[in-house]
């Protein structure tokens, strides 16, 4: 046997050391996408700078702050990224400087103009960003901005932090995810329909003929496969599907244990593992619904030259699935009690099968690209490999436009508003609040002597909104009173909570990993509860 050279240990760069704790989550590829992203923040409120903080630290490429306000004394009391001696200066400028101190790798600039001004003069300014984030943006600017970004396919995240209440709304026309990082997944073992090389290996081991020592080291999936065949022999070739049938298979496995003069011996660890796998590893191969839906999507069946690599790969996957009747093998073997050689042999079988299948999908994708007349390099082999590995977790979000949401004339919230535990009433309150701000140019309860009159005004606005939507429910007076109590106050810690949440949504959009919010989130810091709704 050839001796392998001792590999030289790689010296890590300072950058990969600095970002180590997060690269362990989203990988070098995710980090690279993050470093190429450009984020625009509209309004450097406390919430706004908290969002940027959690983006500058992990190292986005650049940010731009749009804010025409000057720093006030109140700002200093809630916003960490403003200096106490900066009162009267441009809020965009001061916030940019303070945020840039956090990470020398990040570029940042600012526009000391109101978002209204930019919207009415240079709309296409917002085109160049990967994501636009807006805080405390009034309706009259929000709606045209939302329409504009929807048409330009730039994702928009809108946030508000007021008193103990927080709100995040994510608008994205289409977002596709390959790595959604599910919490747990059943292993992809294919024991019901092993491919020839796997079948040959599994068939070569007679579990019942093994001596005590080998028995303790045979991998659990070999055991499972062996007794599955035994079960099939006993049941006319059928596989166990009901709970009782699976229990019968388990009994076959259990009954195989050794006996001595004291009775049955303890079942070995690998046999215990095999029992465990009976439940979730013997399901007939099927295409998960979420994936089938994606494969049947118009974007997948009607590719154009402007289709994204994601959809080109989906089209290739669709062809593969039509031919094979299954998704490509994931190729990862879970750890199981076994001797090194058996485990490594099995692992190689799974790995090379997955490799061959992903090559097949890649060839199809390249062919599809050629047929479309686009450069073959639009999809790379390594991308397809990752795509195939994660084929069962593919995810597509098609959101809704905020401007459309505001124009809807009927909105049936009855079922939510009837439920005393639903936080949907906050949606009504927030819409009322937004309308109050546009009508009166101030927050309800902003001035100490106006709290009670503002409660009445806000109640009347909310009543009108509900009537416009044809909704016959009411929102409790107490809730209206509470939001007027806040008077537009921004509690720093509530903004910090919302800021962290919103920043991670930006990271999801940019890295194309994890499932973004779909599409609205309310946080109630009074009870520390939250809810997400699809608007």
């Amino acid at each position, binding site marked *: 046997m050839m001796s392998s050279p001792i590999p030289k240990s790689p010296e890590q760069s300072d950058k990969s050391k600095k970002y180590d*704790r997060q690269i362990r989550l989203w990988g070098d590829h995710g980090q690279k996408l993050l470093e190429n992203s450009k984020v625009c923040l509209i309004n450097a409120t406390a919430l706004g700078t908290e969002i940027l*903080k959690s983006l500058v630290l992990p190292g986005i490429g650049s940010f731009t702050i749009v804010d025409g306000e000057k720093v006030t004394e109140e700002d200093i*009391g809630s916003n*960490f990224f403003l200096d106490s001696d900066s009162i009267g200066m441009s809020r965009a400028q001061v916030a940019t400087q303070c945020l840039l101190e956090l990470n020398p790798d990040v570029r940042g600039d600012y526009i000391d103009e109101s978002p209204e001004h930019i919207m009415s003069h240079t709309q296409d300014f917002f085109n160049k960003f990967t994501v636009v984030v807006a805080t405390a943006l009034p309706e009259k600017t929000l709606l045209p901005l939302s329409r504009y970004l929807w048409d330009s396919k730039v994702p928009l995240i809108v946030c508000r932090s007021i008193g103990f209440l927080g709100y995040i709304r994510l608008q994205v026309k289409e977002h596709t995810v390959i790595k959604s990082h599910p919490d747990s997944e059943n292993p992809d073992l294919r024991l019901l329909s092993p491919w020839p090389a796997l079948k040959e290996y599994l068939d070569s081991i007679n579990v019942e003929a093994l001596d005590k020592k080998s028995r303790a080291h045979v991998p659990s999936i070999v055991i499972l496969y062996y007794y599955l065949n035994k079960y099939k022999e006993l049941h006319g070739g059928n596989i166990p599907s009901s709970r009782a049938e699976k229990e019968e298979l388990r009994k076959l496995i259990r009954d195989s244990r050794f006996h001595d003069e004291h009775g049955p011996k303890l079942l070995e660890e690998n046999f215990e593992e095999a029992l465990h796998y009976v439940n979730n590893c013997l399901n007939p191969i099927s295409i998960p619904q979420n994936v089938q839906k994606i494969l049947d999507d118009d974007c997948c069946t009607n590719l154009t030259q402007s289709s994204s690599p994601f959809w080109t790969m989906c089209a290739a996957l669709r062809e593969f699935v039509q031919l094979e009747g299954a998704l490509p093998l994931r190729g990862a073997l879970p750890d199981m009690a076994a001797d090194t050689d058996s485990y490594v042999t099995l692992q190689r079988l799974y790995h090379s099968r997955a490799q061959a299948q992903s090559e097949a999908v890649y060839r199809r994708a390249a062919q599809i690209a050629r047929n479309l007349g686009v450069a073959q390099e639009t999809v790379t082999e390594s991308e397809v490999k990752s795509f195939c590995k994660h084929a069962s977790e593919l995810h597509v979000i098609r959101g809704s436009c905020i401007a459309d949401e505001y124009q809807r004339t009927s909105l049936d919230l009855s079922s939510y508003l009837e439920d005393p535990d639903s936080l949907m009433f906050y949606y009504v309150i927030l819409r009322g609040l937004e309308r109050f701000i546009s009508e009166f140019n101030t927050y309800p309860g902003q001035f100490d002597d106006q709290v009670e009159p503002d409660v009445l005004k806000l109640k009347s606005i909310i009543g009108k909104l509900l009537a416009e939507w044809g909704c016959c429910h009411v929102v409790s007076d107490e809730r209206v009173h509470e939001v007027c109590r806040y008077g537009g*106050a921004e509690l720093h810690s509530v903004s910090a909570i919302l800021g962290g949440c919103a920043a991670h949504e930006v990271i999801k959009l940019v890295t194309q990993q994890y499932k973004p919010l779909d599409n609205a989130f309310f946080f109630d810091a009074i*009870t520390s509860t939250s809810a997400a709704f699809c608007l």
Partner: protein
Amino acid sequence: MSEFQESNQKRWSHLRKVLERPGPFSHPEFEPSSEILDFIMSSCKLLVIGAGGLGCELLKDLALLGFKNIHVIDMDTIDLSNLNRQFLFRHKDIGSSKAEIAASFINKKIPGCQVIPHFSKIQDFDENFYRQFHIIVCGLDSIVARRWINGMLVSMLNYDDGVLDQQSVIPMVDGGTEGFKGNARVILPGMSACVECTLDLYPPQVNYPLCTIANTPRLPEHCIEYVKLILWPQENPFNVPLDGDDTQHIAWIYEKSMERSLQFNIPGITYRLVQGVVKHIIPAVASTNAVIAGICATEVFKIATSCCVPMNNYMVFNDVDGIYTYTYEAEKKEDCLVCSQTPQILEIKDPNKMKLRQLLELLAESAAYQMKTPGLTTVIDGRNKTLYMATIKSIEERTRDNLNKSLVELGLRDGQDILVADVTSPTTLIIKLKYVIDDVEMK
């Protein structure tokens, strides 16, 4: 400028709206007034434990909620890998005390705020130190430290005829994160579930069986553990104990792990994986820390001001798939080892067979105890007897033989009190042995 004027400043008008106006959802005892902000600013004293990912956020959040008297304890120094989230630190601060840099940053940034740093371990302080605080907030990554401070706060409770003296209760707000998951909780020691009541929420640490590591490795992690646990002590390459922060040490482990993995044809060794396994690295991002610290700080604000009812009492957070939170009431354990005021009863099936070693294993492995290196003493015939103690070398040697003796051989009787000392608790815990006769055997 007097404190009164300070709290009147326009700067704090956000807080004043919430504190000086009545609200339908505030605590029943809440009386809105300007005195509440005065209290926060001049009298209320907080302790933040940990100046890392959560700690930096907590200090910022609390300072901007008006708190001015804040102590912070952290025994660590700043490392390059902290800078992706611990935003009070800069490259030039690497190697300095986290507590000291964090405190001076906050004090400079927020005029009037007085953060006092302690570059030390929590175990360096006694109850006289902890008693001075109104609320204690934890942003720790160590379960042992959490359990220790929890034990300290419970040990400081006063009971009068079995009735808890409310004045002796110091609320503890605790946060924890791992990747995109986190939790936040409010503990009223003696009144609501404490850290020990819910010990089973912490997953036990992954330990690979030694025989797998030595004989049948399958995963790259097995190869790394082999080098760390077996090869390092054998070859002792640098004549010092393994230090996960020393790049030379990691490089050595990396090379040897790679050799071993090639020998067994195991794929997947990377430098990053080696570091992760050797240092037990928990992934961390800025956003999750911001969320969890924000939730904790909000709870501190609620407890200190009564402007809202505090969370009852445990919240989990996860933003991998959308944004998810769940808040529920973790239950106080009737027979909690630390806070229940009831003797701990440990049932022993066969005291003739059970060796002291097995008793120690039970204390380390059972979900209810999860001890690290328990030391056991007891009283036999009115005399103190040390059964086993691993932490002091001379005593360990003297008591090592006891490990293989059965409980009966050691003279331990049914109902015997065992005093247990462990790093997870500042005080000695008492466990009562109860010998149960198996009535199935009797038939």
